């Protein structure tokens, strides 16, 4: 590394010794390292920080003609409008329900999968199972949504099966009551296998002697899974759980939008799809930005709170 110490070794000049504490001298000497950082810093500034300034339009009446700076301040007007709008309660509850259920139902599946895979003794078979269950992860969200429409259409294969018991096809996609189930089940189908990679990797680090010792002491398989395997996974589970809770308000918005039909909106309209429709499609810029900001702030609060609680409970933390 280009530390000041090696600097003196290479140049062997006494002045370098004197300069070693000056940050400016360090920067001048290692300017290449900063040049390397520059493109990333600029791109993040443009596409992440400028929109953060842009979010001030949530407190203004933005007009594209006047620009952001010259538009008039209206304070919390847009937030008030959103909170008081008749849609608010439904959209908010939909968002919370969809993501909470998805988290609670989806989170344990990869863990269970990894524990099950870990019991497969023959490496070849295990590899092949993994190969198959990772596959859906690589299918695009548009194709997944397309497949859902095909499989669940009134003339589709699922209804053909159900036709053996029911006398009339179920129109899954236009019935709000089915939306969350479809969304979550398809999410597990697509993602659980791939999400298990990280747990499988963690389990492969378990010392087999631990299991042998426990077996000699008379521990049953389930006891060993509970006291050895699950304990190994705990740190990984904690970090992933915190991250998942932090992302709870932004979960799966691209898929939700694709799966929306005019009939299932009462269950499928979530905050992000609403932001898109009001903010971009209807060009109600300030209102859209305000709802988006409302969403980000809730995410941030959730992330910090969960991190705090988890830290209190078992000492693991994300940052």
């Amino acid at each position, binding site marked *: *590394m*280009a530390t000041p110490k*090696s600097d003196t*070794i*290479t140049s062997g000049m006494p002045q370098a010794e004197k300069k070693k504490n000056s*940050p400016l001298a360090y*920067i001048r000497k*290692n300017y*290449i*390292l900063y040049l*390397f*950082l520059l*493109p*990333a*810093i600029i*791109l*993040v500034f*443009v*596409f*992440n920080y*400028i*929109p*953060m300034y842009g*979010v001030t*339009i949530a407190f203004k009446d933005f007009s594209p003609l006047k620009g952001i700076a010259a538009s008039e301040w209206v304070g919390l007007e847009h937030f008030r409008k959103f909170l008081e709008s008749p849609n608010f309660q439904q959209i908010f509850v939909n968002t919370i329900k969809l993501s909470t259920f998805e988290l609670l139902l989806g989170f344990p599946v990869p863990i269970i999968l990894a524990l099950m895979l870990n019991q*497969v*003794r023959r490496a070849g078979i295990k590899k092949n199972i993994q190969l*198959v*269950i*990772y*596959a859906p992860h*690589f*299918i*695009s969200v*548009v194709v997944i*949504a*397309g*497949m859902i429409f095909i*499989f669940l259409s009134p003339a589709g*294969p699922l209804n053909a099966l159900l036709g053996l018991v029911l006398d009339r096809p179920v129109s899954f996609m236009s019935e709000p009551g089915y939306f969350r189930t479809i969304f979550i089940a398809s999410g597990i189908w697509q993602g659980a*296998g791939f999400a298990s990679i990280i747990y499988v*990797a*963690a389990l492969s680090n378990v010392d*087999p002697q631990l*299991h*042998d010792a426990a077996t000699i002491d008379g521990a049953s*398989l389930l006891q060993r899974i509970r006291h050895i395997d699950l304990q190994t996974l705990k740190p990984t589970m904690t970090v992933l759980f915190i991250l998942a809770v932090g992302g709870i308000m932004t979960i799966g918005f*691209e898929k939700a*939008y*694709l799966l929306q039909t005019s009939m299932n909106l009462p269950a499928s309209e979530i905050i992000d799809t609403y*932001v*898109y429709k009001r*903010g*971009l499609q209807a060009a109600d*810029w300030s209102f*859209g*930005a305000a709802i*988006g900001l409302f969403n*980000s702030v809730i995410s*941030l609060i959730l992330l910090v709170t969960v991190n705090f609680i988890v830290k209190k409970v078992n000492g693991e933390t994300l940052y």
Partner: protein
Amino acid sequence: MNNKLINNSKTDRFILFLNKIVLSLIVLIVTVPLLYVLLGSFLQPDVLLTRGISFDPSHWTIDGYVRIFQDGTIMRGFFNSIIYATGFTLVAIVFTIMAGYSLSVDGLVGKKAIMIYFIFTMFFNGGMVPTYLLVRELGMLNTPWAIILPGAITVWNIILARTYFKGLPVALKEAAMIDGASDTRIFLSIILPLSKPIIFVLALYSFIGQWNAYFNAMIYLEDRSLYPLQLILRDILIQNEVQPGMIGDQMARAELQRLAEMIKYSAIVIASLPLMIMYPFFQKYFEKGVMVGSLK
């Protein structure tokens, strides 16, 4: 593991047996829908709708594929997607690796501040509307830049790259330094050759992520000739729009609908097959990527 010798009680063996059954079921649940679509794409639509999957060769057809290739819309989308995903991956990889390397250097002045600058964006962002307004302001609406530049830098990837570089043996770098090699030299001729795995992992993630994305294209692109594959697919699969070039002129409505159904199956196969075929070769890299990430 020689557990086989020491265990097992009857319950244990029963549980292991159950485990095999459930895993086989899971494999079935994953594969059956995929096979259904694959086989369905080769079946005449009326047969598929009325009788389901059939193995009678007289029911087979490649009409769906022929129509897709004839029309060209999907092929153009395919081509656009390759350009977008390649451009996006290049920008992402080059800049991410460079930044990750600098941040891995011990004693870099201002490292902490720069890390905070990056990490802050993981917790808070301006959101959809301000980002859209920015892209519009920059004059990038309806240009490939709107797809390639925003989102190319992912802070998470920079952290991954940095973690990887930190794990490289220091001795090599120090030896080069004593020989008087510059930072650029060290980076190009010592670090980069050792970094193929992380470059490959990041490139795969970026490319596949961009290949499968539709949302940015939907909000930023208007011109249909610029549409990536996923957006074309959305029209066909979700909006039920059939491209005029895919069907002849005078067709009855019912016939049209059946054809549209068949084109859906073929379109899904064409869009998904390349990744499905390629990913087993890359499987170990995905696993490696997850491992680097879990070290943090």
